[in-house]
């Protein structure tokens, strides 16, 4: 499908309005021809012919024509603008919807700034194309056709001589389009890089300041800034190579008309009067030829933007999103049966190898293991953020792959390692998963997460707006709000990924007691580095490089005196140091 066919899908819903616009366009454009004619009449009839009574009607005609012409033009401009906006609206909606469907894999490999570019700069190029370029092209075509018809009636020989030049314009246009194509894509890419760089700089402003890297960042920015300018200059270079020729060719029509026309007149094949009239229409043929080069730039900008947007819209999430099913409630029995997983771009490094375990509904599973041992990946398989490479994950005795992902995720609440809070009120953040929650419920879950205390101390309490990502809050505070957010969803499966790493042990115990006290039975996964966080679990998995090396309850694992025991001893030692002996 060409880019034009593709964008037509977004435009065609406005078909009826566009017909109206085209009609108004034709009226308006045709009226341009009237006033010069009326002025000629004034000179001929009134000034030379002294028919003074015609003056006022002619003048009123001129004003009337202008009024109609400007009103019709105003209307069709607005319709084209509206069409552009409607298409832009739908396109953005489609892109946003796609964004929500794409999986983690896509986001792990695409920079935020690049997606931003697609949804803002690129869509704007498309809007511009629909709202403006389209009727400019229309105008060109109209002038071209009308002028040729009119000129033909005056002198077909001369007209043919002029039309003979058009292939040259056509070739130049093609050549220029071909040369500009990669250039505009480069401009777009450069813009995306610039956008990404600034985006990262803003997000990472704390690190930049902490390391006094402002100058380094400015230097980096300067490179991108300069590159963006250079790419634009590349386009100017192509333009300056082709456009003057194009313009010159269009202007050469005047020369041809004059010389060849003059020749025809001298040879008696045309009258001088006809030549003068012919000359009067030349601009109409001239104009579209001159515009074509400029429009090519807009078209190429449009194409470059289409590429990236269409690429994103065509991206298939590896886990398909099915829409429209009824909500379903799972109990929360989870079984991993010989599950292995590796990222598609790195098949040599399995992240999980042959993991098997079973958790009954309502049980708590603790997962401990080293950094990078696959803990987070393991729980990500439950919510189908990834599907296993081999083996099966069973939820309520049914293969997880058979669950539509949104319905499944409705039953799961995760507290992620990187706490992400939205720049919104604390209360809105907590009720993120269930926007209809009342404030009482929000406060009650905040109490469970031991967040109520510090929230109440804030200037606006629950209505305090937190900065993007939760900046301004301490790690422990963010984790607790994030926990409250998960609890507010009242899930059957609760996943706590290193949720309490930044809170002190006392608070952690308090939270654990509160969690135990909750009446709803839910299957809970706790990923932690501290044994204290998992010791009450019904099942503890010790992961090492993607393998479950030990599993069982705290007591069983302690009795085994294996690796878990070792970790525990180490933690005890680390916590108490040399004083272990003296205090016991």
């Amino acid at each position: 499908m060409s880019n034009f066919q593709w964008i037509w899908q977004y435009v065609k819903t406005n078909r009826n309005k566009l017909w109206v616009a085209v009609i108004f366009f034709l009226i308006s454009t045709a009226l341009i021809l009237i006033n010069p004619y009326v002025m000629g009449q004034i000179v001929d009839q009134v000034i030379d012919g002294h028919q003074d009574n015609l003056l006022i009607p002619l003048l009123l005609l001129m004003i009337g024509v202008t009024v109609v012409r400007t009103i019709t033009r105003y209307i069709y401009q607005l319709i084209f603008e509206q069409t552009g906006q409607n298409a832009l609206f739908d396109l953005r909606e489609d892109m946003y919807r796609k964004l929500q469907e794409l999986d983690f894999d896509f986001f792990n490999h695409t920079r935020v700034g690049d997606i931003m570019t697609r949804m803002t700069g690129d869509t704007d190029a498309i809007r511009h194309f629909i709202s403006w370029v389209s009727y400019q092209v229309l105008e060109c075509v109209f002038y071209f056709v009308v002028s040729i018809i009119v000129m033909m009636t005056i002198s077909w020989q001369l007209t043919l001589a002029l039309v003979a030049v058009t292939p040259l314009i056509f070739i130049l246009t093609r050549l220029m389009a071909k040369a500009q194509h990669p250039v505009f894509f480069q401009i777009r890419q450069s813009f995306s890089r610039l956008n990404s760089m600034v985006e990262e700089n803003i997000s990472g402003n704390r690190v930049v300041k902490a390391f006094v890297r402002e100058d380094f960042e400015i230097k980096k920015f300067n490179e991108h800034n300069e590159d963006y300018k250079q790419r634009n200059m590349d386009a100017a270079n192509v333009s300056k190579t082709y456009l003057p020729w194009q313009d010159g060719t269009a202007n050469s029509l005047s020369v041809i008309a004059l010389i060849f026309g003059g020749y025809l007149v001298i040879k008696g094949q045309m009258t001088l009067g006809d030549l003068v009239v012919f000359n009067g229409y030349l601009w109409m043929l001239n104009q579209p030829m001159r515009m074509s080069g400029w429009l090519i730039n807009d078209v190429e900008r449009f194409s470059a933007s289409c590429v990236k947007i269409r690429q994103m819209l065509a991206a298939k999430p590896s886990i398909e999103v099915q829409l429209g099913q009824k909500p379903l409630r799972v109990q929360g029995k989870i079984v991993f049966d010989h599950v292995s997983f590796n990222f598609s771009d790195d098949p040599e490094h399995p992240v999980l190898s042959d993991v098997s375990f079973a958790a009954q509904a309502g049980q708590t599973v603790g997962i401990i293991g080293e950094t990078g041992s696959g803990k987070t990946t393991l729980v990500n398989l439950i919510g189908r953020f990834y599907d296993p490479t081999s083996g099966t994950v069973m939820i309520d005795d049914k293969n997880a792959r058979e669950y539509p992902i949104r319905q499944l995720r409705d039953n799961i609440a995760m507290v992620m390692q990187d706490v992400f809070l939205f720049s919104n009120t604390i209360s809105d953040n907590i009720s993120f998963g269930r926007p209809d929650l009342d404030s009482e419920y929000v406060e009650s879950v905040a109490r469970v997460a031991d967040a109520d205390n510090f929230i109440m101390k804030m200037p606006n309490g629950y209505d305090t707006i937190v900065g993007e990502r939760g900046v301004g809050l301490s790690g422990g505070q963010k984790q607790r709000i994030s926990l409250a957010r998960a609890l507010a969803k009242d899930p059957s499966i609760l996943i706590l990924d290193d949720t309490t790493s930044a809170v002190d042990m006392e608070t952690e115990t308090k939270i654990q007691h509160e969690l135990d006290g909750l009446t709803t039975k839910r299957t809970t996964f706790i990923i932690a580095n501290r044994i204290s966080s998992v010791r009450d679990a019904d099942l503890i998995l010790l992961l090492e490089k993607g393998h479950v090396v030990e599993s069982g309850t705290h007591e069983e694992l302690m009795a085994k005196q294996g690796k878990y025991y070792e970790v525990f001893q180490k933690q005890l030692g680390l916590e108490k140091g040399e004083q272990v002996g003296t205090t016991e």
Partner: protein
Amino acid sequence: MAQRNKSDVDEELTEQFNWYDYARLARYIKPYMKKIYQILIVIILANVAGMLGPYFTKITIDSIIPNKNLSGLWLIGILFTLSLFFIGWCMRYRIYHITELGQDVLKDMRLDIFQHLQKLSFSYFDSRPHGKILIRVVNYINTLSDLLSNGLVNLISDIFNVVITLIFMFAINAKLTLYSLALIPILIVMVMVIQSKQRRAYQTLSNKQSNLNAYIHESIAGIKVTQSFAREQENFRIFDETNEDNRRTWMHAVKIQFLLWPGVQNISVITMCLIYFVGIRQIGVEVSTGTLIAFIGYVNNFWNPVINIGNFYNSLITATAYLERIFETLDEKPEIVDHPGAKPLPQIEGNITFKDVTFRYEPGKDILKDVNFHVDHGQSVALVGPTGAGKTTVINLLSRFYDVNEGEVSIDGHNVQDVTLASLRRQMGVMLQDTFIFSGTIMENIRYGKLDATDEEVVAAAKVVRADDFISELKNGYDTVVEERGSTLSAGQRQLIAFARVLLADPRILILDEATSSIDTRTEELLQSGLLALLEGRTSFIIAHRLSTIKNCDQIFYVDGGKIAEHGTHDELMAARGLYYKLYQSQYDMLRLAHD
């Protein structure tokens, strides 16, 4: 701290656009005035050459054809063609240099705003969605592109044309000239009315665009949370509203904007009619037919540039809505700046004194109150206490991310407010709670701590903090490309990279804010020895919850309620049986409980 902004709330404009801002805009253009003059000369030459066309046509029709002068015809053809080549050359010059002019001005503005952003304090970034900052640096500035290149040059040549034409008109017939200016007051009133409405409309639009940008940005950044909460529908609903707001305000704005052209067009035609009307009555009295026709031609010449100027003004009004946001950002005062006469901080030893330090974000709510302490160089200090007690604030004051409200923070006897920020922070290594990883290779990320570090130095630093273990297992080792925020790495791995980064910076004062919270036991154990090496000879502040990290410190501060409630060594505090003792016991109890 002022109430933060969020994505669905319009930002209030803190300063209205005024004439001073045009002067400011002019300042960006000033360095390129020479270039503008050159372009103008070329444009005028091209216009003159363009006038030759009608002249050639005139003589061809008036004399050459009636005289059947074929050779004259060919000569005209050649001259005409030559003039076209000259026009082509002018166009070539113009395309390139006008683009360059526009790009240069934009580049300068972009750089200015970016440089200014680097000076702004945390609070600026913390108090609004990042998408709203981003749109100003990138998108808003781009909207000025046409205005500052073609628009500007055309404006100058149009004004030139208007003035010249007016002079000619007056020379021909002053009375008719006055008639042709009769409607100018109406034009001015119309322009004023349209511009005030248009301005407001574009201000609203720019706000809505900013909101949309912010919402998209947050949606992408927080996509994992959204998906894991299956909240897509609700997000979509909000997006839909924001999107609709954009469409509506856009249409409203263009409805007003597009009014200008029909207005000017109608006024120009009415003026024309007026001239005909008046002129024809006076034929033979004051004016000849030839004069009238020539005059009408000039009226046309007069109105075309006026319409262009109108269009320019139109886009200027549109751009104003963006310009005022850009200038607003440039006028944002950094809260933390070098004081006048600030000197660079000399090489420090790292003796730190807090004297009667009080700090608050807003009146009446002291975060820290009358805090006093002294730390000798080379000592390590652990800050413990409940969340929100003010631990992070202590270190933020030390590295002057915020300024104290009362009291004084000094290093080696230098008040931190009397030295330059760069010299102060360069001697400090801060490892923050949020580990931020830039997109790039792991090597580049660690090197951020010391830009001229060799690969060997980077690897050595990674080894000390035990990051080398996992890095060397990656497919491409140190050259592994990580995406923004390091989303493909685990939180613990990111902390290790950040650790290496700080170590490489080799600061005199080291600040670790919950730096090891996500690191597993084995790595932590291994890290301990590296950490000791790291702490050796540096003054360090450590915020941590793990007592293992805390207890080996030379001093422990228990921060509670904005005060240092207890301080001393681990043994002293244990002996004192106060808050620290309680904290320690509770953790110890939990461990013992686990052991039983």
